[in-house]
């Protein structure tokens, strides 16, 4: 019951917290799990474990979305964050040979600043959300977060922000490509005849056969 007590001050006048439904209890439990996983993510000294706990935290968030009937967002969360972002993070960690066991240098002098920023963000968000919704009750009908509903909202009411965001992302993408290819021209060392060059891309002529 301590969970309910913790949640109580957020919405004291909510009509059903005295007799919570199963979904609400699960929601709170998953929320606690997500919070725990997130805390372990930032406190553990083992780099890869941190990434794996991030998987748990992000997966828990997807479950929360599901419980709020936002099905589409939940699957996008899984696809993008679990399937791609974490894989990218793990790829990076493996490429830098993250050691098994504790990394002695997996610490940052900025942690107090980070803690302050994190707490401030959390405080702002909680205040904002609590202040915005107070005791209003949103009825979570089935299908409110389906792909159809999400699509209609996105492309009917929010088309302009959506397009602006895509242009922004495109610009970032082009920028990344330009940055990564900048040194490519002119500075290429010319191949010396008669010597094997290390790092020569093999099979440049046979690519078509694949």
């Amino acid at each position, binding site marked *: 019951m301590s969970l309910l007590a913790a949640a109580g001050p957020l919405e004291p006048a909510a009509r059903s917290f005295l007799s919570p439904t199963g979904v609400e209890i699960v929601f709170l439990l998953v929320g606690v799990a997500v919070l725990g996983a997130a805390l372990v993510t930032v406190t553990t000294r083992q780099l890869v474990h941190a990434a*794996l706990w991030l998987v748990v935290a992000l997966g828990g968030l997807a479950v929360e979305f599901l419980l709020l009937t936002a099905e589409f967002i939940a699957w996008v969360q*899984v696809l993008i964050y679990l*399937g791609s972002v974490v*894989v990218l993070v793990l790829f990076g960690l*493996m490429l830098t040979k*993250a050691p*098994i066991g504790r990394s002695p240098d997996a610490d940052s002098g900025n942690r107090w600043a980070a803690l302050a920023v994190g707490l401030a963000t959390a405080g702002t968000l909680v205040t904002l959300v609590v202040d915005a919704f107070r005791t209003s009750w949103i009825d979570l009908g089935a299908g409110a977060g*389906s792909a159809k509903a999400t699509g209609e909202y996105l492309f009917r009411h929010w088309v302009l922000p959506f397009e602006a965001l895509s242009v922004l992302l495109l610009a970032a993408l082009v920028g990344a490509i330009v940055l990564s290819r900048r040194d490519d021209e002119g500075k290429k060392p010319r191949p010396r005849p008669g010597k094997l060059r290390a790092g020569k*891309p093999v099979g440049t002529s046979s*690519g078509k056969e694949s």
Partner: protein
Amino acid sequence: MTFLEMLLRCVAVLMVFLVFPLVIGQTEHKVMAHMQGRLGPMYAGGFHGWAQLVADGVKFVQKEDIVPADADRRVFQLAPAVALLPYLVVLLVIPVGPGGFVGQAVDAGIFFVLAVMGIGVLGSLMAGWASANKFSLLGGLRTAAQLMAYELPMLLAAASVAMAAGTLSLPGILEQFEWWWVPWQIVGAFVFFVAGLAELQRPPFDMPVADSEIIFGAYTEYTGIRFAFFLLSEYVGILVISALTTVLFLGGWHGPLPDQLGWLWTILKTFALALVVIWLRVTFPRLREDQLMRFAWTTLIPLALAQLALTGIVKVAITS
């Protein structure tokens, strides 16, 4: 849906999960053998070695479960489950026949399937890192690179079908299906199938487990039942990819008498595709790592984008 019905569906999906991969595996044993002029297993079970994979399973269970001394124990032990379970979940949403002949219909089915399948690769990554073995690590790296390269064309090809049907739900797509979608989406089907093969690390895209270079990639250190889980996940993966290609591109249950025999058409098409997977494995040599990457980025993605554009144009032309 009553509790009993739910239980029944779950049990049915579990049965499919346990039986069909074995059937595919046995087919692979025999078909591969005959394609190479051999007989394949002939002893286990008596008749043409039908129980070979059962015997293999018994063997795997008996073997000692070894965890390398320097490995990250928990991650190492958890990895096979992470690799295997997503496929079980995916099987739940693949429609077999019309009228709710599906484990559980999901509104954004395509998204669900692709998202959950992406998690399975985390298992390989965890295995690769936690084994404390450089070959495993290399295998894990290659897995990650391959996944990131091939996830995109797969998504784009699936998006093309979703666009054509106007829905993300798998049964919904099949209800909209017309026969001329097959030629219309043929390029998308090719891209989807090939990218799916690459995600499963099946030959000719098996660079992450290339045994002549890195032993068995991320699974080098595994033995016994955990190793069997990885193998099983590969064969469930074949089932899932074949079934998904069937549902998305080949019209799933559509065929003569769809109401009575729909499930049969789905299963037949799925197994035909699984046979193609095996056939490709027998025929083609392994692609080199740079060829793999080039194939994904310079062939599959442009093809998928072209298919998407074609779908869009035809769709607008039809509806207007």
